[in-house]
């Protein structure tokens, strides 16, 4: 390579070198006779492994009975088994150098774990126990429930929680996706029998997926796993209900009054699509250009030009049955109307004017690059594999992701923006001190006002 003169070295942006290919590590994918699906990938970055045992049912499966019940079930499941007390579980984990957590979202319940490879057999045995022989000790249940209730009270003082709660209720109404957290009363109505019932019905091998990534040989690890899990009696779970969604006839504003707020949390958007929808990648790319990256239009406008906010972002959020698109920003109280104006201006610009070649190319490269970054760690790899397998995406979904992104056009972006950045029907939630922001919010529609407990005022 010729040496450039010093001044040129300083002033000319270096070109990109040729890309190096992503080499996919060997992967094993198998379903045991009892229905347990297993995906394994080796990654030798550190002498550890990480894993997730998923069940394809979460809070949405039992929302009609009790919101948050799946999460509570997962929480208490790690506090005792037929063979070990809560204290023994925690001390055994420490002995293996392991971390373990349990929880449930709308669509899945999960036991997540990582540990040193030398102890993989012991850790798998413990995970298996938690999945099959949890004992739900009543005193552990009472303790966890009290902790949950105190946590719920603190959530109700957190602006971002209150904004998401109202937004999801507006978009999804009485559908399970419309409730992101139980009320105190609902949490108090759980009984330990409800947890056991959930556990019996949904913690079944035919409803489960085990993903593991780490410093092991997949073939040997598969043999280890089979030994531990093969005796799990087969069983599947009931399908999850999908009740009708509310009609969102026009743009509407909701204000959650949080007295004393020194900032306003904005969230707005519409229902959108799941990852399986043919438009998914188009929407992902449009979102990236609009507000999904640091150099996106939204961030440039309301942060870097106007200084209204610290971390504005937009996102396309896929759930299993439906999805939604949202724009969020925590802004200064006196610029709520100005921020909404800019947010909508940038959305409408995406809908009306095709994106130029350079911006399009930058965004495609960004998405493919970030995808590669996500494969460079054990956690990142496990996350990508889990998403693709849980949602039953095409077998080569990950391998072909980058080439599919690189084929997208300006017309694809315009099409996605017109369909999913639906400003005329946008649902707008603002959380803050009513006295300071109501008149600004009212410029965008007559606000429905709620208190932090969710009561209309």
């Amino acid at each position, binding site marked *: 390579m010729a040496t450039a003169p010093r001044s040129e070295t300083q002033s000319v942006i270096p070109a990109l070198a040729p890309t190096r290919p992503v080499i996919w590590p060997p992967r094993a994918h198998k379903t045991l006779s009892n229905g347990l699906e297993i995906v394994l990938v080796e990654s030798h970055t550190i002498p550890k492994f990480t894993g997730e045992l998923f069940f394809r049912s979460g809070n949405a499966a039992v929302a009609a009975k009790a919101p948050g019940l799946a999460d509570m079930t997962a929480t208490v499941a790690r506090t005792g088994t037929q063979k070990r007390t*809560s204290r023994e579980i925690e001390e055994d984990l420490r002995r293996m150098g392991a971390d373990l957590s349990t929880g449930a979202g709308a669509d899945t319940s999960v036991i997540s774990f990582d540990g040193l490879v030398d102890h993989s057999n012991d850790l798998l045995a413990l995970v298996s126990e938690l999945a099959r022989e949890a004992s739900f000790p009543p005193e552990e249940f009472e303790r966890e429930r009290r902790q949950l209730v105190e946590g719920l009270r603190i959530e109700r003082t957190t602006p971002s929680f209150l904004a998401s709660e109202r937004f999801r209720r507006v978009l999804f109404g009485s559908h399970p996706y419309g409730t992101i957290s139980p009320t105190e009363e609902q949490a108090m109505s759980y009984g330990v029998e409800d947890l056991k019932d959930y556990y019996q019905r949904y913690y079944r091998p035919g409803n489960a997926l085990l993903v593991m990534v780490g410093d092991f040989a997949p073939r040997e690890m598969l043999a280890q796993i089979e030994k531990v899990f093969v005796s799990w009696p087969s069983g599947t779970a009931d399908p999850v209900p999908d009740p009708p969604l509310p009609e969102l006839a026009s743009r509407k504003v909701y204000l959650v009054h949080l007295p004393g707020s020194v900032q306003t949390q904005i969230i707005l958007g519409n229902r959108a699509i799941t990852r399986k929808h043919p438009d998914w990648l188009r929407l992902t790319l449009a979102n990236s250009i609009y507000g999904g990256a640091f150099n996106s239009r939204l961030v440039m406008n309301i942060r870097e030009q106007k200084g209204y906010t610290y971390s504005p972002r937009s996102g396309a959020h896929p759930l299993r049955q439906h999805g939604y698109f949202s724009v969020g920003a925590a802004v200064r109280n006196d610029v709520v109307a100005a921020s909404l104006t800019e947010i909508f201006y940038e959305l409408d610009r995406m809908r009306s004017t095709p994106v130029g070649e350079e911006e399009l190319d930058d965004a495609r490269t960004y998405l493919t690059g970030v995808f590669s970054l996500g494969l*460079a760690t054990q956690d990142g790899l496990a996350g990508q594999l889990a998403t693709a397998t849980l949602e039953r995406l095409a077998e080569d979904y990950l391998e072909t992701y980058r080439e599919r992104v690189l084929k997208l056009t300006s017309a694809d972006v315009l099409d996605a923006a017109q369909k999913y950045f639906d400003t005329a029907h946008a649902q707008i939630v603002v959380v803050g001190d009513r006295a300071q922001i109501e008149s600004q919010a009212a410029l965008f529609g007559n606000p429905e006002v709620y208190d932090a407990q969710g009561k209309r005022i």
Partner: protein
Amino acid sequence: MVASPDRAAPVATVGVYYNIGFRIEPRGRSGFAHLFEHMMFQGSANAGKMVHIKLVNSSGGVLNGSTHYDVTNYYESVPSNALERVLWLEADRMRALKVDDENLRNQRDVVKEEVRVNVLNQPYGGFPWLDLPPIAYRNWSNAHNFYGDFDDLDAATLDDVQKFFKTYYAPANAVLLMLGDIDVDEAMRLAERHFGSVPSGPAPAPADTSEPPQIEERRGVVEEKFGTLPGVAIGYQAPRRLTPEWHAAAMLDQALHGGRAGRVYRRLVLEQQIAVDTEGGIHYPVGDLFDYNGPTLMVTRILHKPEYSVDQTLAAYDQIIDEMKEKGITAAELEPVKVKFRSNYFSMLEGGHGASIPRYGLMHLLACFSLFDSEPNLVNTILDPFMNVSPEAVQSVAQKMLTRQNRSIVIRRPVKKGAA
């Protein structure tokens, strides 16, 4: 320059660390080191406002910076074909900052919203990382508001920005790190090419961050505007880094604060059920065992049930502490503590605090060992002295460190009543 190759995935992480954090920012300019970090994204000699961000994102990468007690970092993770571009960008902003009053006004506004979203408008915002220093320390460097009083942020001028840059951002005060999919010789050559022409300047004189000896327990109360549970945090002055006491204190910390098996969580949350949550650590919560170079605390953070008083909560906590001092720790308890410590260390190498930045943790360790200890290779040997800590050493450091006169306590008192 420090390089650490691993060519399994075609991505590289690059960082530049400057040996300046918020601890020694100028008096009357609280929050300035962090505000300055924002200014480093506003334009440099040959790359104007937004060019840094655009060039990294459009190369398929991500970037950020963060201000710590004793270092400030700027880093990028990119597909490895963008390595030279990233080195060029970092060299360019080490060479000269090109910013104006409009940039400063803009980022001052952004930083104020950052402080609001993270502290002023959040339940338990700043508890205890902003609460404890003014109570625990007497030297302004250690004791001031690191995120910044708004008056001080308003008072900052462009002149302050350039002066700070000239004083602390000289090449002699920095380390460059290149990790991942790199050829070491090639990477060193590229780094030389772009950083070699950055004008040298003197490294700043070391600042005085020393504290007078603490002779009595210190206490303070902070109002909790949003949350419903009372909070209490206890901080003990911790030993100097790389000393035998520090190694033992790290094992003591893991025994006390290591997750649900740690003594504090087990006793206060699981058994006595006085607390709803406890966490803690050395240099917790905005740092870790390795990334400080001056006085710090081993902190325990407790949110407790409203039906228990602060005194009752502290009495239960003190029982745990007194037991550790009186009876120490058995080899049977210390052994798994070490296993867990080692396992945590490996996880830190790979991910650390920046989940989307492969090898952020390894980069962070290499940088701190380079700047503070002049020995990046510690990353390979640092585990040994921890693994050799004896039960007696843990008890001995507990007796020395966990005294009333060596600690500070802050109470977060809720304004609202949340009790059932």
